[in-house]
């Protein structure tokens, strides 16, 4: 599998994702945002960070960068695209995913390990997980509060496009297990073609026992098989 990680000037999880991909035997290339051509890839990852300082709206400016046009082209030809954290925000700004990510409900940056539930395991990103499986995974963001209109929400539900939801350690999905105020505890969504996944939690931080746990590994290995 060939992967590309897009690097914006303020990306800061680019190395982390690259390490994870290489550990999982992806052949990975880093792609600078000013490039106008993408190397041939089966998977494009838009990593976390603060693409351009995120001073306007998170992800807004990255959404206008040169490389993004290529990402959009690749997406329409079915290439797999994974946006993590800031990457998710960028995907919504480009319109590749619908909805938006507002400020966290408490207006504070939140970094902690939370639980999420695998809602749809029938995708290329999640097939190695069991349906309903509970993962313990790190979040780190200021704007992770997913919001969308009721029409899109209906569509997400009907077409099974919600990938992950925040829950507690027992799997209960409720207000107490919602770290950031996200609509219906949504932590990650897919486009209707299911080749694009945007998620706020950081799977790349969960691949190493000594650092955390290995709950992120199956996301990458799902993509391999």
């Amino acid at each position: 599998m060939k992967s590309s990680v897009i690097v914006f000037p303020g990306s800061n999880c680019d190395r982390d994702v690259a390490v994870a991909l290489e550990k999982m035997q992806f052949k990975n290339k880093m792609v600078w945002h000013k490039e106008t051509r993408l190397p041939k890839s089966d998977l494009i990852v838009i990593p976390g960070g603060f693409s351009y300082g995120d001073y306007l709206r998170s992800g807004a400016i990255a959404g206008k960068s040169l490389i993004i046009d290529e990402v959009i082209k690749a997406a329409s030809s079915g290439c797999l695209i994974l946006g993590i954290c800031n990457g998710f925000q960028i995907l919504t700004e480009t319109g590749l995913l619908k909805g938006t990510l507002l400020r966290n409900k408490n207006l504070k940056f939140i970094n902690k390990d939370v639980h999420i539930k695998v809602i749809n395991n029938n995708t290329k990103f999640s097939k190695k997980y069991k349906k309903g499986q509970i993962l313990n995974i790190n979040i780190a963001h200021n704007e992770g509060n997913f919001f969308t209109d009721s029409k899109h929400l209906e569509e997400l539900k009907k077409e099974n496009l919600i990938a992950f939801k925040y829950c507690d350690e027992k799997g209960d999905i409720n207000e107490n297990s919602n770290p950031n105020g996200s609509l219906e505890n949504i932590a990650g969504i897919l486009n209707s073609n299911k080749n694009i996944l945007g998620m706020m939690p950081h799977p790349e931080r969960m691949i190493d026992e000594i650092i955390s746990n290995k709950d992120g590994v199956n996301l990458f290995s799902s993509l391999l098989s």
Partner: protein
Amino acid sequence: MKFSVTVTLKKDVLDPQGKVVENTLKNMGMTDLKSIRQGKHFEIEVNENNITEAEKKVDDMCKKLLVNLIIEDYKINKIL
């Protein structure tokens, strides 16, 4: 030519920032506060003397970058 642009969240979009500010102000004893919403403000100067042209340019900036039309509304005003 100078313009000011006000960007506000659409009515039906949750405004977490406004909410927290509102609660804080109320807790600080400002009980007469009815509601508060927060938005963005830009001051833009363009090299263009024709007002319709200038305004079109600013509008373009809003549409293309400054405003997320899915969740935000905006208003352009000329500054004298």
